């Protein structure tokens, strides 16, 4: 019993170490890729696959988030005669939390699953070994372009999700429930600061990196056969999802501390 627990603990620590080394290699490979114009075509291709093709699904997610928030919150606020405050409630929720997190979760499913399945299949059909056999580092060739594409485009996709979330909330609140448009936007403008938008977008960089490295690592280390690839995809999504939530929490704490310390100084500068 103790032996089994010990063996499991050693295995877990060892795989954490392997993951750490993989992340470090991926970061170094990204630096190498950025320094070579020949790598840009690979990055561009991945940006198209990962980013451009994710735009519709991320926009739909954002729009529904905004609309659902409006439907759920309207009755409570209208009961107190505060329906014009609906805008601030929806927009701050969308740009700061729900937009980034739900867009990232959608990307973990759509992009992360595809990355793990593609690299996992390449692994079990020896294509990754084939890359190595011709003297090419597979982390540079396969991981770096995907990681850079996720890093650069997740924040951009979050902006799309935010935009559609705001429009979705406006559509339900103002067009469907008849809230005064001017009041709706005035309260929104007074309640949502640039800081809130920046926080949401900056989270996207962290979420993008987490999705890419976890998905690529699971693909690179997946076990033989269809079952192995399927299991790797499931593990990649679960790990990405938990990482998104954990990172969201950690970043919320860090940004809050940062905000409390530095944001008041803004008035001294401006």
């Amino acid at each position, binding site marked *: 019993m103790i032996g089994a627990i010990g063996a499991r603990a050693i295995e877990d620590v060892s795989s954490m170490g392997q993951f750490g080394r993989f992340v470090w290699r991926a970061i170094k490979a990204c630096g190498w890729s950025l320094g070579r114009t020949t790598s840009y075509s690979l990055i561009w291709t991945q940006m198209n696959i990962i980013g451009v093709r994710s735009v519709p699904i991320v926009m739909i997610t954002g729009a529904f988030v905004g609309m659902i928030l409006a439907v759920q919150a309207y009755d409570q606020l209208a009961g107190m005669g505060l329906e014009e405050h609906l805008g601030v409630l929806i927009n701050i929720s969308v740009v700061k939390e729900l937009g980034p997190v739900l867009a990232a979760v959608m990307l973990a499913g759509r992009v992360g699953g595809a990355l793990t399945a593609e690299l996992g299949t*390449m692994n079990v059909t*020896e*294509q990754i*070994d*084939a890359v*190595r*056999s*011709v*003297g090419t*580092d597979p982390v540079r060739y396969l991981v770096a372009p995907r990681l850079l594409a996720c890093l650069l485009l997740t924040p951009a996709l979050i902006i799309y999700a935010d935009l559609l979330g705001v429009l979705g909330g406006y559509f339900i609140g103002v067009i469907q429930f008849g809230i005064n448009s001017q009041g709706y936007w005035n309260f929104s403008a007074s309640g949502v600061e640039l800081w809130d938008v920046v926080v949401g977008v900056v989270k996207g960089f962290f979420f993008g990196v987490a999705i890419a490295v976890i998905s690529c690592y699971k693909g690179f280390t997946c076990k033989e056969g269809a079952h192995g690839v399927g299991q790797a995809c499931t593990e990649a999504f679960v790990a990405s999802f938990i990482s998104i939530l954990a990172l969201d929490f950690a970043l919320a704490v860090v940004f809050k501390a940062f905000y409390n310390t530095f944001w008041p100084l803004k008035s001294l500068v401006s």
Partner: protein
Amino acid sequence: MEENEKNNQAAGNDGNGIIVVKNLTKKFGNKIVLDNISLTIERGKTTVVIGPSGCGKTVLIKNFIVLLRPSSGEIYFKDKRIDNLPERELNSIRIHYGFLFQGGALFDSLSVAENIMFPIMRHYRIKDWRQVEDVVKAKLAMVGLDGFQNYYPANLSGGQRKRVALARAIALDPELILYDEPTTGLDPIRADIINELILKLQRELGETTIVVTHDMTSAYKVADRIIMLYNGRIIADGDAEHIRNHPHPVVQQFITGQVSDDDLAVLRASGTISKAQFLPRDFEE
């Protein structure tokens, strides 16, 4: 066992060995796949590694190119120890190798031409694309597939895929080509095409060839030297004649393709219908 000990004593480079392996052991967990193997692969010759499925043939040649690293022992390529090199340094060694994988391992997202260009593009700064296209054409012509440049791997048959993979393997004009089960899964005619290609490339390019196979027709046709692996050790090593007349019962059993008496007895003792087996009448109402 004698052959293994003989190789252990002889391993060392007399100047003609392109690959020298000393006391190579490879374990996966507690399972020993290769057990203290020592051998020298001679330059310009075709060495065939035979042995039953799962005996460690593929693991052995993946160690030669350090796609797998030994658990213990040393591997030298042209007198340079390579098993302990970091991946970055290995990349400059691996361009001297060509590796034909068992399933071809073609990149499915790339066309045939792009697959063959891949090693060239990764190692050279291309100034004249027409020159690269000429190289691709020449390599495809060597394997008899010129005109297939724009096909994708999914549109090729098993034999064509292996030939394209071979064209990719020779794209950088390697000094050493490793073939992992080149004829497995092919019909006898297509298998013979691959054998002829191995001979042709060896003749025209003069490179060192290592073939892993359990196809004895192929082994006899292409080999200058045959090595037989069994339970992770070399049990026979010599030319085709030496292997044909080898006294070891496992060697004779393998090259004649006969099941052992013990295995036969087990098969005959087991019934063909078990009591738990369902019959069609079990499903009739």
